[in-house]
């Protein structure tokens, strides 16, 4: 299987919202990008202020909400005990499910199929992010090998997408929600031979620990490309007019684990892609600092 091709095919639907923009609008936006003045007065690499809250769903183990001027993403994380698969008896599970609210689909003029494809592509990207970065050590989520592991389910709901840049919001929200997630501590019950046979989950709401390795969990930054110009944090209108997008999966330390180029018709010069990746590596620290997602969790400091 050609991984890149599959990814490209899947991703194509993410930003492709029908490509409805008139020639005049395209020209206006392209000229603006060339002159380094975007529709809302930002420079090419400026980002819009985003609002992030965590812990807003009380009955979830972790949650977050990201709002970016018309884009609104809600994430809930649920941690459950599950039976591990036979081929990976000592690994916990991390599952992503992303859906778009039907209200959003109507407003953003997405038909059900496009919305479905878009969310499916995002799910795929989320899985690839974990697979390629190995940020979360799934072995740490194991309770009793072969018997019980923690299953971390990340549910993402795209409430609104008119502000553009859904991809970045989704992955920032996922990261924030994982930071917010706590897992109840377990005590193993041992038999007379000293072998663990059973476990006991603490019912104390404060006897919990965070997920290990979340601080290194990457986010995906999305860059639009018009001509040879790279711009960050695209607006909805700019998404419609962009020649291509470069998605860069990058962790707080600047380690790139995934890049994806999506073209809408025209090809992109390789140097432009490299520029986008470099920009992502420089920008990621600022983005995460703004959202407060760089703190190493308390658990890691304790060393367990």
């Amino acid at each position, binding site marked *: 299987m050609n991984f890149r091709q599959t990814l490209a095919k899947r991703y194509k639907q993410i930003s492709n919202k029908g*490509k*409805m*923009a*008139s*020639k*005049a*609008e395209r*020209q*206006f936006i392209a*000229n*603006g990008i060339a*002159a380094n*003045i*975007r*529709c*809302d*007065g*930002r*420079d090419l690499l*400026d980002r*819009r*202020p985003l*609002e992030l809250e965590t812990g807003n769903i009380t009955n979830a183990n972790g949650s977050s909400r990201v709002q970016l*001027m018309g884009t609104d993403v809600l994430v809930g994380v649920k941690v459950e005990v599950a039976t591990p698969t036979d081929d990976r008896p000592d690994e916990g599970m991390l599952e992503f499910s992303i859906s778009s609210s039907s209200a959003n689909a109507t407003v953003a*003029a997405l038909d059900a199929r496009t919305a479905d494809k878009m969310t499916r592509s995002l799910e795929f990207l989320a899985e690839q992010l974990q697979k390629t970065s190995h940020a979360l050590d799934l072995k740490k989520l194991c309770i009793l090998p072969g018997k019980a592991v923690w299953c971390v389910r990340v549910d993402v709901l795209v409430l609104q997408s*008119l502000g553009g840049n859904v991809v970045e919001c989704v992955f920032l929200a996922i990261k924030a929600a994982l930071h917010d997630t706590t897992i109840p501590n377990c005590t193993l019950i041992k038999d007379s031979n000293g072998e663990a046979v059973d476990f006991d989950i603490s019912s104390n709401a404060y006897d919990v620990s965070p997920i290990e390795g979340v601080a290194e969990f990457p986010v995906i930054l999305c860059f639009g490309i018009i001509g040879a110009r790279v711009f960050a944090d695209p607006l909805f*209108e700019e998404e419609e007019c962009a020649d291509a997008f470069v998605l860069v999966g990058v962790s707080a330390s600047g380690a790139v684990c995934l890049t994806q180029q999506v073209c809408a018709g025209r090809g992109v010069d390789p140097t432009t892609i490299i520029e986008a990746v470099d920009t992502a590596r420089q920008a990621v620290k600022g983005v995460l600092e703004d959202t407060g997602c760089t703190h190493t969790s308390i658990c890691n400091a304790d060393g367990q």
Partner: protein
Amino acid sequence: MDTTADDAGATAPDATTTTTTTTTTTTIVERPGMRIVCPGDVITEDQGYMRGHGTFIHDGRLLASVAGVVERVNKVISVRPVRTRYVGEIGDVVVGRIMQVGQRRWLVDTQSRLSSVLKLSSVNLPGGVLRRKSASDELTMRQVLAEGDLISAEVQAIFQEDGTLSLHTRSLRYGRLGPGMFMRVPSVLVRRSKNHFHTLPCGVAVVLGNNGYIWIGASMEEDTTQAREHDQHIITEETRRRMARVRNAISALAHRMLSIFDTTIIFTYDDSAHLEEKEMLHPEAIATITQRAYLLCTDQL
């Protein structure tokens, strides 16, 4: 500029005596006699009223089914929702986007429930040529308006069966819109007024569609059709910055759910003079720059 806004803000508490339950920090503009409800709120327990749009009867009480403003016409009580699709009225100026070129008509997205219709017979052909009904001019429709094009138009009629809007562009004011920005705001925020085409003092042209779609252009010369034909119109950096400022002013107003019309836009634009365009996106900045518009909307100015 910001000092005037602050002065106005300081006098606000005296003026609030006229409003019912408003605090100055709320983004919702309440007026005397205006009631805002959320879904499930009891509007009345009185049996003498009739159920209108946005309401339902439960246990003999009249409840709201949407968030909005309570309106009463004689015995009928209805709730006008805050967030809704555009409900058109004849004579409204709208901004729309061509979705499809059909048989002798275009389908236009106007944020209403159904795509609006622009008939080939209700457009002026470029250059004011008289249309000769023939197969060839149906084939060249795409040269007049293609998919994705933005237009300004007027609501000509509303189809009785399903409420589809029929538009027309038979005036020099209407037609295809040239290079510029498009933005959308909740349609309830755009106030119906005599004129929806404005050239602001800063030289930027705006078309405020009643349907909540807004177009911001570099300029609107006297003969608009002529101006719009010039697709290669060069926009200077200065103009571009002004346009960005107008855009951010409008989105700040929309963010605070304030009425959008020429005066509020000019107020917000002027009050933002001390900020850079991109600084207007910050939530704190939005609160300061829209203060004067807020006072105007609450009749405190």
